[in-house]
């Protein structure tokens, strides 16, 4: 590791900004552990904005189950013979296949680098259909609403007013152990999110080629260094308004981290692994590049947040979904290949989340907002080629359908998050802080991580 210069330069800048009162101290939340980490792990959250229709992503191929599926989905059903067959190691006796365009997912699954976590969604406690219909159970508020359910996935707040996200709370809880890191634990390629908001920690945002830097402050701009010094003095002087202060805080962080990131990226040529030229592909590519130079940042734990959109398929689903799932599969496969290329496969776990599953019934040419759905987890540390949880019945008005093909989740978003957090290094005793609804469920770890 030859980054002492880099570190020295960073610490100098950091000390300068800190002396100016621009950079706060480490977290103040109760600590999850005391021992410092010596290894490296990273979580990469791929959030599928809009609500992925995952009941068309993974479909039963056995005749009996397929026929139920096809009867429910009618004009939105994928043809049985077109499904891409997979061979789970823990078969429940039913054959499954991925969407015909999701060749990347099939490849990752069959090579053991991808697991499916079946029918997971926001829950405050286990819910049966009877409980739901009788109003006999606690439910997450505003089921079926985009931003509320996205918020649940990201915050796990239940009915509380908790304003932090679970990645933010992980960063808070590990703050003392990670105080030597030169970058914030949470990094986003996709702007601000509830997911990464902490009480005492904030995420840092990059763009698709690294960090944005101020053109007017460049050394080759006339009086650039003087202008930067002037700007820093203004920031340091403070502001008498909360909005100005919030903006100034962001500017300070832009100044602090930009050179660190861009200098590091210049050290390493592009990876050999090609990425699809899509929004998700470009975002995963910069994450892969940053991971390739992670030693420059002296980090032990990182969480990346990446979004990709278009999943709110109310209309033209048959036309749009093939592209969405092809891109998702191709991108996850490229990312996993890149992680193998840089030798970090076992240390990096990529997982999906999405607003909700979608209705099994059709609105003519698309689907509406549902509840439970399947999620994907990939990486060398994942117990791949398996389907975790129980596949729900896909029958309209069946045991798992609360109305119109909205499927009650059998696993909770809290259990899913806790499993990932536990692998990441959060002690079992601290998991309730990360996933507040976890105590309502028997299984505290879904077992999909090695």
């Amino acid at each position, binding site marked *: 590791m030859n980054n002492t210069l880099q570190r020295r330069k960073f610490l100098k800048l950091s000390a300068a900004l800190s002396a100016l009162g621009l950079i706060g101290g480490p977290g103040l939340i109760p600590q999850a552990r005391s021992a410092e980490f010596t290894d490296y792990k990273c979580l990469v959250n791929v959030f599928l904005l809009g609500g992925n229709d995952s009941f068309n992503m993974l479909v039963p191929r056995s005749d009996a189950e397929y026929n139920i599926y096809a009867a429910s989905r009618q004009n939105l059903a994928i043809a049985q013979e077109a499904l891409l067959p997979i061979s789970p190691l823990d078969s429940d006796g039913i054959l499954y296949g991925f969407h015909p365009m999701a060749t990347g997912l099939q490849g990752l699954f069959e090579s053991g680098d991808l697991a499916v976590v079946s029918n997971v969604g926001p829950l405050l406690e286990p819910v049966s259909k009877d409980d739901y219909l009788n109003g006999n159970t606690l439910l997450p508020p505003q089921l079926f609403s985009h931003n509320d359910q996205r918020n649940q996935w990201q915050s796990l707040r239940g009915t509380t007013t908790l304003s932090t996200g679970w990645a933010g709370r992980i960063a808070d809880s590990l703050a003392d152990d990670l105080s030597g890191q030169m970058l914030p634990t949470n990094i986003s390629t996709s702007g601000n999110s509830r997911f990464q908001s902490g009480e005492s920690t904030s995420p840092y945002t990059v763009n698709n080629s690294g960090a944005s830097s101020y053109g007017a402050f460049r050394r080759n701009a006339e009086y650039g260094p003087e202008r930067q010094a002037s700007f820093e003095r203004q920031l340091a002087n403070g502001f008498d308004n909360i909005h100005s202060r919030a903006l100034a805080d962001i*500017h300070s962080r832009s100044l602090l981290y930009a050179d660190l990131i861009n200098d590091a990226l210049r050290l390493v040529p592009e990876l050999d692994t090609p990425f699809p030229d899509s929004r998700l592909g470009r975002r995963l590519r910069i994450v892969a590049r940053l991971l390739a130079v992670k030693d420059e940042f002296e980090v032990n734990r990182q969480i990346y947040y990446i979004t990709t959109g278009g999943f709110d398929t109310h209309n033209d689903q048959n036309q749009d979904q093939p592209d969405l799932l092809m891109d998702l599969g191709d991108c996850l496969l490229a990312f996993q290949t890149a992680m193998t290329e840089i030798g970090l496969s076992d240390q990096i776990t990529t997982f999906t989340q999405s607003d909700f599953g979608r209705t099994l019934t059709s609105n003519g040419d698309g689907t509406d907002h549902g509840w439970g759905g399947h999620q994907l987890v990939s990486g060398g540390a994942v117990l791949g080629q398996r389907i975790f949880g129980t596949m729900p019945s896909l029958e309209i008005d069946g045991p798992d359908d609360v109305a119109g093909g909205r499927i009650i989740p059998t696993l909770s978003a809290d259990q899913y998050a806790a499993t990932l957090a536990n692998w990441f290094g959060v002690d079992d005793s601290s998991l309730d802080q990360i996933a507040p609804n976890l105590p309502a469920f028997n299984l505290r770890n879904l077992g999909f991580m090695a």
Partner: protein
Amino acid sequence: MHFSRTTIVTISLLLLSSCGGGGGSSGSTTPAPSGETPTAPVISIAEAHRFLRQASFGPTPAEVDNVRNIGFEAWIDQQLLETPSLQLPYMDDLEEPENNREGQTNRLDAWFRNVLNGEDQLRQRVAFALSEIMVVSDQGNLFNFPNGLANYYDELTLHAFGNYQELLKAVTLTPAMGLYLSMLGNQKPDKAMNIRPDENYAREVMQLFSIGLVMLNENGSTILDQNNQPIPTYDQSIIEGFAHVFTGWTFYGSESFNQPSYIFRLPMAAFQDFHDEGEKRLLNEVVLPAGQTAEDDLDAALENIASHANVPAFIGRQLIQRLVSANPSAAYIGRVAAVFIDDGYGTRGNLSAVVKAILLDPEARAEPADANSGKLTEPLLRLTAVWRAFDASAANNRYLFAYPEFSFSQAPLRADSVFNFFRPDFAPPGEISKLGLVSPEMQITNETTSVTVNNYLALAIFLQHSAVAEKDEATIYIDIESELALVDQPQTLINQVADKLLGGNISEQLRSETASMMEHWDTQAGKVVEAIHMIATSPEFAVLR
């Protein structure tokens, strides 16, 4: 989808004639009670400037003078009478765009032209606010239809001072909204095929455009039940009720329901055969009887939404947030909601009265109360403020700026989803969250965008000013001639720039930093643009107090 030239002409004629006949409800607006203008109190430059940052796309010296001369209320009254500046007529006069990307750029050209130069500043500002509440976007299935989006924006512009329920109806029936939230082509159930009506518009029209998710008091605070939990405004069965209401509509002039005409300039029309004729359960225990026409169902359903108790505070608060402050007091919201409920003449939903109440409220007009007051100015509005203050224009008389969102994270009708660029309740981690306050525009402010906004401003100021030697026909240049004349008096120059951008409210520090930076330069233009850049990229300028 491309319109032939003749189609465009025919359709614009249709549009013109329908507007002349009061097709836009703006013609029938009841003016807000105005009363006598009292002996005009002395309005300072700072006060007039702050008002115009709330009510326009940026103060100009002339408009500041105007406000100081006639007063706030008279200025608003004047604005209510200005002719609406529209996008489609301008776009129709342009050469036919080569492709849809170019068509979208023409649409933004029309937007910049109107918000920078339109006399109807307040109407434009309210229309922009509405476009961030009732969202459609060219990101998605509307990308190919710039004219449809322009028509949508024009409807917001025409109804900005109209009646809320009529606005809601206009919005509901635009083909742009119809496509964006999939009401267009939505049809009655087909049980055998497991097909039920599309719930997209039914859900979002309530959640985002009118009443929100939880029951509100008139002052915008949340009503809690005995368990201290909010009370949902609707449940799934009500969404399904509205989803059934919104069946049977497609483009006007379509030969049949499934052969769309793609006429974007006229409201959608109904095909009764595709409309569900059953009973529909709506809000407040209202049940629409079976057998009604699509039109009757629609009118009754929109009446049902618009008369819901939440609307005044839900819409009032968001309009305050777009124009004045991120965290209005409950009392302020309550006063605005009261005017929404009754404009003084017994009319509910008179938006001109609501806008007037927002801008004339003591909380909007008084000196900023404390550190929590005001709001972060939307990034794009920082650019328009600079461009208006320095009368920016291009030689070709256009504003060709294809991708404002790359720098500003926003562009008119270009949000990533119906949830807009930012949510009204967004709170960044840190001080604002801890105080239980919000700062919506902070949702698009991060370590990347804080830089890209300032970089674009640097470009627009340092490289695009009137003293640049070699000009480009399509580049937008700010006019710095009157500042160049002051270059020998640095403090006077700084004062003038500070007057234009900050209403004179410049901190001592920013003033002295600006003066020192100017000293580096030995060119006149260098000194001027340095001063403008220093102020325009400062956190002081980014926040409207």
